[in-house]
């Protein structure tokens, strides 16, 4: 089974395909512009936003620096409240645990709340191999599942589809939809009809977790549609797969995150529904609760002292929505469950840069992601740090990638040249003479080799005959 994190195609190539899809560009442009404006409006309402961000960052920093202690505390709290706790080193282990629980209840079908952790481990495919069908209940996840596609956004997996495309999928896959219109409310109603009986009768539900509280063992799921409440409340058995970084220290800390998350993600003051549960509550909701604590590369990320901050992420998707690269290429180009700026750092951190070497370069380093991040992940800082890891990797495995090797030779040569005035001035003169063949009508319209990407749309002005320093010298001689 292919990994849900490792890109199959380098970003520039995958982006080229996506950029050629004009419908996709229109859908994405419209959606990202809409959500940006909504987020900005509700963030502007908060005069203590920066203080909240700082607390959100610091709390995650505290958790990560003492993660072992907090995980043990969480385990104890959940067990005290009547829940079972499992630990999973990787995708296979987590999937096996879920499958065993489902089988112990003879469940051939399970209902699922949208969860990135389960997408990351490809749980649906893993369960299918065990003869268990996982039914996605989030509207966008359902659309993607019915279309047989992958998510392109961490919050709105079907952001790349417009209403008429969604109507076509529903008409093909759902019963009694011949007269379905493309009005969003009608599309939502069709999903409601389709899933109603599943919610009422399925024995086992699977969820992810937005937060887990070490102090109390409380797990929190933030959602909009009510499919989360359905899954978390009605089936008698609940299995939650939670990344080990989703911890927060105390109940009180929700005062920070329940402000940061909704405003950053859907641009709402509060999302429609949030469920908080602590183990098992007698006579209310599932009477059997399992929490699976998932590593799957997170400890690898934790070991990177600069990259560690990527584990602060609360999956709000504000960085995707603001990103000028994501806005044009969409999520599929990143080739990972985690796309966009956060994906460009989190994916290589989880799987190792050698498995996703193009992702740290999938950014113009414009810094908009850092500015909107509610937990202050300095994404540009981590990007350049990971680029250095990529360079180190290529330098160490000389010849594995000829382009990368050629670049490395050029960059080393340039660095050598620029570190000394005489060499630098000589290079300036050489550039002036060397450009000769490329200059025509006072412009450079075609560049060779590594630089050809520049000249497809942009002219370059030739290197002028007199550099600034030449001018300065001549002026001071007068």
């Amino acid at each position: 089974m292919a990994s849900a994190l490792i890109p199959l195609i380098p970003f520039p190539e995958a982006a080229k395909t996506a950029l050629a899809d004009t419908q996709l560009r229109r859908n994405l442009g419209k959606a990202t512009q809409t959500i940006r404006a909504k987020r900005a409006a509700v963030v502007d309402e908060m005069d203590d936003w920066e203080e909240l961000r700082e607390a959100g960052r610091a709390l995650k920093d505290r958790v990560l620096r003492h993660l072992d202690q907090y995980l043990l505390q969480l385990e104890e709290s959940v067990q005290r409240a009547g829940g079972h706790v499992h630990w999973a080193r990787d995708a296979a282990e987590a999937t096996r645990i879920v499958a065993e629980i489902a089988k112990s209840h003879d469940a051939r079908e399970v209902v699922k709340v949208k969860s990135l952790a389960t997408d990351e481990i490809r749980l649906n495919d893993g369960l299918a191999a065990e003869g268990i069908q996982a039914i996605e209940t989030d509207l966008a996840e359902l659309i993607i599942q019915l279309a047989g596609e992958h998510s392109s956004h961490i919050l709105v997996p079907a952001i790349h589809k417009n209403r008429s495309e969604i109507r076509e999928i529903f008409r093909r896959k759902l019963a009694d939809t011949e007269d379905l219109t493309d009005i969003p409310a009608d599309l939502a109603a069709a999903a409601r009809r389709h899933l109603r009986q599943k919610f009422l009768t399925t024995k086992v539900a699977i969820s992810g977790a937005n937060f887990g509280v070490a102090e109390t063992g409380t797990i929190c799921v933030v959602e909009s549609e009510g499919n989360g409440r359905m899954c978390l409340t009605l089936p008698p058995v609940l299995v939650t797969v939670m990344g080990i970084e989703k911890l927060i220290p105390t109940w009180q800390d929700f005062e920070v995150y329940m402000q940061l998350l909704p405003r950053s993600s859907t641009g709402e003051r509060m999302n429609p529904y949030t469920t908080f549960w602590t183990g098992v509550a007698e006579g209310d909701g599932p009477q059997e609760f399992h929490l699976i604590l998932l590593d799957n590369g997170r400890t690898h990320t934790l070991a990177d002292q600069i990259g560690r901050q990527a584990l602060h992420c609360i999956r709000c998707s504000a960085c995707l929505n603001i990103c000028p690269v994501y806005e044009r290429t969409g999520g599929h180009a990143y080739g990972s469950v985690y796309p966009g700026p956060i994906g460009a750092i989190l994916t290589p951190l989880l799987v190792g840069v050698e498995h996703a070497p193009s992702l740290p370069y999938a950014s113009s380093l414009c810094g908009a992601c850092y500015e909107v991040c509610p937990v202050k992940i300095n994404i540009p800082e981590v990007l350049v740090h990971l680029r250095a890891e990529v360079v180190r990797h290529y330098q160490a495995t000389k010849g594995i990638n000829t382009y990368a090797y050629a670049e490395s030779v050029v960059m080393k040569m340039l660095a050598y040249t620029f570190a000394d005035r005489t060499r630098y001035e000589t290079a300036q003169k050489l550039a002036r003479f060397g450009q000769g063949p490329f200059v025509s009508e006072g412009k450079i319209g075609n560049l060779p080799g590594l630089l050809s990407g520049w000249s497809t749309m942009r002219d370059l002005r030739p290197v002028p005959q007199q550099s600034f320093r030449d001018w300065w010298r001549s002026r001071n001689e007068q």
Partner: protein
Amino acid sequence: MSSSAKEAILYRIRTALHDVPPTEQPDDVAITRAYRQQDDRPHAQVVEQFVEMTVDYKAIVHHMSEADLPARIAQSCQDRNLRRLLVPADLPTAWLPAYEGLEIVTDDPSHPFANADLDATDGVLTGCALAIAQTGTIVLNSGPNQGRRAITLIPDYHLCVVYADQVVSIVPEAIAALRSSVVEQGKPLTFISGPSATSDIELNRVEGVHGPRTLEVIVVERDPQG
């Protein structure tokens, strides 16, 4: 197997954190809570904001004195032509509407209804634990007048009574007030902000997916004599 996975993960974490001084304690990592934790505005303003924000999230909202509450409940139910109204067992009898053709269905904790029976009702009437003005949020904690979670989820219509003195201004005040429900009583909580909605189609908010598609809220000023 599970315990070895646990040991392996804890070992990986401790190895990864080799840069953290062994003497450092969690509390040594400073947290500055410089954000607002309380709001001192006059309570009437807070209640006004709750109404405004809840309306903004497409809920139907009424604001009245306690004396008018029973009539309002009956009117709301009748306007929707409800036939089977679900209520928690401890709901005040004064709230219960009565008109021809209406059946009150009580969810008794000792004989809880099956999901299919809940699905056969067409509305639910409850109180709440508290409400948050800043965000237009109602909080349920399975406490008095609320029943278990399933009853406010399955019916398509939720009529919720919020006493004005249950409204807090900002999120941190709500989290503080809910602490004992969670820490001491281990109760599940539900935050409800408007009716069920989705933004999954072109990122436009559409009301009404799986949860109640209509949320109606009655904000009640408690009778001073009561």
